[in-house]
């Protein structure tokens, strides 16, 4: 399946007039088992796709909530390998697209040329690498293409026409539009404006566009969705909801509740 799984999801949702809800989890926070259980709970509660975060020691694009989660995750077994394990477990019972989300160094350590095939075998459909602009990582991109994995490009409010062209040149799957200049979890995202920019970008890109960074409530998700974007990503709010709970069943319930409320807001007409 791989790239097609994404293409199909976005096409179906657009036909139905619904917004794709992507949920981010930091694998290993607070345990790999929690990540697996909460990933399944998110899908059951109405998430359309998962971003499985591979924790990294130096997540410079993440704010304090996800940075702290990454730190905990590494202490508790979070790694590329365990992220692939969680992908495999999810894929065993779900057909939802899975995006492997992370930084480049853990990918280099795994092996640029072998990661895409390993990820595809684990049921992953796309890679999203925060610190890999299109000029870098050629061997990874070649291997991803061979494994029919999308490498999701990121664009930001600072991206000009030149950057847009460079970023979109080899894009597949969907485009991730970063809502603001900032790190994940920041509160200052001008979300409606970001949604409008993303919708215009969608036309130029000829690909679905999702918006992420700073969407931490059903209201905000809805505000972005109303601008006509294909999807929204919720990360920090999920990580925070999990961190507030003491036990796995509580975390599963909290993720389910949050995802249901997001789904409800997105689907309300």
């Amino acid at each position, binding site marked *: 399946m791989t790239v097609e799984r994404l293409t199909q999801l976005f096409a179906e949702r657009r036909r139905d007039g619904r917004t794709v809800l992507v949920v981010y989890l930091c694998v290993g926070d607070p345990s790999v088992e929690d990540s697996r259980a909460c990933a399944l709970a998110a899908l059951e509660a109405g998430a359309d796709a998962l971003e499985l975060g591979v924790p990294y020691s*130096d997540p410079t694009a993440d704010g304090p909530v996800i940075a702290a989660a990454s730190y905990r995750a590494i202490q508790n077994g979070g790694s590329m390998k365990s992220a692939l394990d969680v992908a495999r477990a999810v894929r065993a019972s779900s057909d939802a697209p899975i995006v492997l989300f992370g930084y480049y160094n853990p990918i*280099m350590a795994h092996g640029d040329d072998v990661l895409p095939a390993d990820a595809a075998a684990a049921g992953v459909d796309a890679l999203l690498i925060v610190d890999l602009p299109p*000029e870098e990582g050629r061997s990874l991109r070649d291997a991803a293409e061979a494994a029919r994995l999308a490498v999701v490009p990121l664009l930001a409010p600072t991206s000009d026409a030149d950057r847009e062209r460079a970023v979109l040149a080899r894009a597949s799957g969907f485009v991730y539009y970063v809502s603001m200049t900032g790190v994940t979890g920041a509160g200052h995202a001008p979300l409606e404006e970001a949604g409008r920019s993303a919708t215009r970008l969608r036309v130029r890109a000829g690909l679905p566009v999702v918006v992420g960074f700073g969407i931490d409530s059903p209201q905000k998700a809805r505000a972005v969705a109303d601008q006509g974007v294909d999807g929204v990503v919720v990360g920090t709010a999920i990580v925070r909801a999990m961190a507030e709970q003491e036990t796995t069943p509580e975390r599963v319930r909290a993720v389910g509740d949050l995802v249901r409320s997001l789904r409800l807001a997105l689907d309300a007409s």
Partner: protein
Amino acid sequence: MSASSRTGDASNKVTGRGPYYGEYGGRFVAETLVPALVELERAYEDLASSEAFQSEWRSMLADYVGRPTALYRADRLARAIDPSGDKLAELWLKREDLCHTGAHKINNALGQVLLAKKLGKTRIIAETGAGQHGVATATACAMMDLPCEVYMGELDVARQAPNVARMNMLGARVIPVTAGSRTLKDAMNEALRDWVTNVRTTHYCVGSAAGPHPYPAIVADFQRVIGDEAREQLAQKIGALPDAVVACVGGGSNAIGMFRAFIDEDVHLYGVEAAGEGVESAKHAATLTAGRVGVLHGSRTMVLADDDGQILEAHSVSAGLDYPGVGPEHAALKRSGRATYLTATDEDALEATRQVAHTEGILVALETAHAFARLADIAEREHARLGRSAVVALCLSGRGDKDLSTLLERLAP
């Protein structure tokens, strides 16, 4: 000693300021930052090479920093290291400790802040380890009237307290970083997060020859004044090139600044990394010696990392070398064999500090002390290579006042 038969072949040469030095370098950052790096690169190419910019910066170096800095022949130390003089004929110290603010860092800070000002940036941020780059940036900002915020690991805030006080006195805001190892790496992470948030108004003044392109190239260009001067001064004093030049390597800015002038000559280049409690101990910062290829802070270089690709904490008594990465040009120079990288432990550096103070009356920074600590070894190697006693020039990158509390704690007077 001048022209030579042993010049490296062309493939050994690491040239240019392209994004890459051999297989190292590049620009591994969030897309949000790419336009700012492109803008900086263009500004640097158009502006910084202009006559007007160069003369403005050069006059700051002359009248404000006190350049050229002295080149001093350290005979007593040379004889302490090699009493007979069979191996170490002459030891020349390039006195960057005599720069305004006490280290080479000011050369780069003035250049970058001036560039930022020309770019219309209204705010400067920096990371600092030893505090020398923080002080230098705070100084440049005071002098050029820009607000300055400096990220510094909590551990370094404690061990380099005098420099924290200096930054405050200079009107900068020091922001302690409590994440991770609470040292230079984490300060750089926080600075990058600030920059990604405020990229439109803010210039990130990177303090070493590390980071994403074009920083390693810019910093090396602003620091090459060290080696250019040393070369000219040696030509005047002894009419020859040195046999070898030596510098300590944290991110690698004073070392590359020293190396640049000699890279195309028959001069051996030695960098000395921090071995902390020993390279075998896992508590060290010897990235080139014991690291692996990876990506850290925007460039592909040598890093200390585990099998999962998680960056490891570095350890060194000197805050300025306590970093698990290194500038990409050094990774390339190591790879090509053009430069040799050695290590010195905490104990070696402390002992060298004492020796230089007692023989020459110079209290050197703990960072610099690592370079001194390998001099006997380097003299030995050069003697073996040349079959005669060697002339060595060392970059004395900074003064040690900032380290007094560590020295008092660790060295019985």
